[in-house]
């Protein structure tokens, strides 16, 4: 193999004539001059086609009435957004979303934090326990949801079998409008608390030791240490974990769709699920897109508020 050096062109120094001889083509000169534009260009172009165009098209569809297959999208201005206000299922969808997300996010955050604090110490077999603990989070959502669907069946599911075997009455779980959301929250908490724990645990490991030592010397008890030191220090991490989780949780789809498809009736139909039904079951692309935009705005607004809280917490 020839030495590598021979293949590398000589540096562009020297007289004008040498520059002329080894002059780069117009294209490479252009590339040299516009590196900031040229190098990200392939990624930007790809993003343009797979992200920007679909979003723009989606926005355009929100102003149209169109059943997929029947004619072309017809411009109706704000018609879809006006329809939102008279559609009972939109209000129901928002209520379900708030109920489900409010309950599941707060439980996941609280439990995730407590378990992280518990794991953040040396004990025998801690690694094995932690590995087992993240199992639910690592499993495929749809597969897990299918298993839960069978387990939660009030007649042939294992959950009621277990309850009855210890003398407790069975529950209707996801089959009753009263218990469906708590039951879905239970599955969500089971699956996603480990994620919060992992993030918080990483945060806890990076906390400084000095304040803890000082507190112990001053005679603070475990709760005081947790409340006055750990919690304020870990707060920004907690908010970041909440933001990450809320992105998925507010538009939770696979788990709810697999287990209840929004039922019984529309008792667990979040706005996101409803927009899917409108778009892909009723094939009403215009109205479905408008619903999707509303979901997007809710997620965006929630995260903007959270981000502000996080920044404020970091400033403190």
């Amino acid at each position, binding site marked *: 193999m020839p030495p590598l050096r021979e293949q590398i062109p000589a540096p562009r120094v020297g007289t004008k004539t040498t520059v002329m001889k080894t002059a780069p083509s117009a294209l490479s000169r252009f590339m040299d001059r516009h590196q900031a534009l040229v190098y990200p260009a392939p990624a930007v172009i790809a993003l343009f086609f797979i992200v920007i165009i679909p979003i723009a098209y989606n926005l355009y569809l929100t102003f149209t009435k169109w*059943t*997929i*297959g*029947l004619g072309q999208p017809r411009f109706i201005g704000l018609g879809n957004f006006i329809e939102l206000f008279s559609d009972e299922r939109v209000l129901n969808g928002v209520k379900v979303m708030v109920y489900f997300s409010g309950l599941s996010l707060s439980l996941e955050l609280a439990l995730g934090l407590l378990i992280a604090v518990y794991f953040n110490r040396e004990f025998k077999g801690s690694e094995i326990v932690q590995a087992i603990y993240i199992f639910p989070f690592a499993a495929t959502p749809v597969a897990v949801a299918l298993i839960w669907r069978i387990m939660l*069946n*009030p*007649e*042939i599911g294992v959950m009621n079998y277990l309850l009855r075997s210890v003398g407790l009455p*069975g529950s*209707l*779980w*996801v*089959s*009753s*409008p009263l218990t469906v959301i708590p039951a879905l929250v239970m599955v969500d908490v089971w699956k996603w608390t480990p994620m919060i724990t992992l993030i918080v645990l990483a945060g806890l490991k990076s906390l400084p030791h000095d304040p803890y030592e000082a507190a112990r010397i001053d005679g603070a008890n475990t709760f005081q240490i947790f409340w006055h030191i750990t919690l304020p220090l870990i707060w920004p991490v907690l908010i970041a974990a909440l933001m990450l989780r809320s992105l998925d949780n507010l538009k939770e789809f696979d788990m709810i769709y697999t287990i*209840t*498809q929004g*039922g*019984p*009736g*529309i008792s667990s139909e979040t706005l996101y699920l409803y927009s899917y*039904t409108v778009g*892909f*079951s*009723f*094939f*009403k692309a215009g109205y479905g897109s408008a619903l999707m935009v509303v979901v997007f705005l809710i997620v965006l607004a929630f995260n903007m508020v959270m981000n502000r809280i996080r920044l404020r917490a970091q400033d403190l």
Partner: protein
Amino acid sequence: MKRRMVCLSLVALVFVGAFSSIALGAVNWKQLQGTEIRFLMNKHPFTTFIEPKVPEFEKLTGIKVTIEAFPEDQYRNKRTIELNAGGKVDGYMIMPGQDDLHYWKAGWLQPMDGYNSDPTLTEADWNFKDFFPSFAKASSVDGKLIGIVINAETSLLAYRKDLFTKFKVKVPQTMKELEQTAKFFYGKEVDGKKMVGITLRGKGAAATSQWVDFLYSFGGSWTTPQGKSNFASSQSIAAFKFYGDLLRNYGPQGGTMLHWAESTSMFMEGKAAMIYDANVFKALYENPKESKVAGKVGYAVIPAGPAGRLPHVSNWSLSIGKTSTPERQKAAWLFIQWATNKNNSLGALLAGVPAGRASAWTSKEYKSKDDHPDWTSSTMKSFEIGQPQWNPPVINVPEIRDITGQVIVDAIEGKDVAASAKKAAELMDKKMER
């Protein structure tokens, strides 16, 4: 041009009829050798039956067939999206009663009359007249044939023959008797299990397919002759109420979450004395590997309501994609013709898929192998009296089914059915597209 084609086709048909002995075997099955076609299919017992046999067709014709099958919900989505995008879909499975108006208006269905009447494309002994007329009619839009039926469906009352004999209970003949029988069995302990009287679908839109038989049998209907929703009529309300009460009082817990899979599981677990669902599920009930009640099930036509016994008939058909090329469409027709020929129809029926061909049912081979003559006779009876309009007569069927499903859920939950039905009727009038 079209008219001339039809005339020519008719003339051809007459010739074929007159010289059927000559025409027999006149189709050159190799005429489209080398063509490649793609079919979208629902994961259905028919697909399970035909897929392994496709190499036979490929050998016969030299046409390469790709079959892509998906579970039903995803299948409907994928098919619609692909057809809209103009994808290479040469043929597909369709339930005409569910999607034909939408697909016809969208221009995704290729009329088949031209192929059916062309002696160079259709064997004389394929004999379209052999298909049940009610199903052939259900697979037509605006008088044009748009699909060939591969699965002829109706709903039947399946009951535990062993328990009915043990407790000396007669098979219910009227809706009142149905309720009494369900009541009789509800809470009875059999083999250490508490029974429910009956299990039915209750999951909103999914329940409408069986509920519609109660609607008709109680004298109700989807729409009035003027085309308005008829849900607020006393007959329709009675049907909603009867169905909801039956399931709430004598059915499994959590009735509003029962799709066919959950409902049939209850029955197959031996926990329900009766089930009212599609006749095709005989294959599930009688499968000893999965069902604890195999061999213990009897079958009957729906009990009579105030308006009589009025079950529905529905079907899955194979259709040709209109966006395909003429050559591939012809190849798709050859495939459909082969898949629905006498031999394959009989094979499918023996595999538990109710065939759309009368001759399959009356054949000696089927009769000699028929383990459940009561299923066969009830199915035949149901085909005879069946109502083809099992879905609302609109383009946006899923949306109207969804509205209907909400009343069924309210009825199962014991809410004010009349108020719910009235509200649904108003919404339906607003949303119906024709």
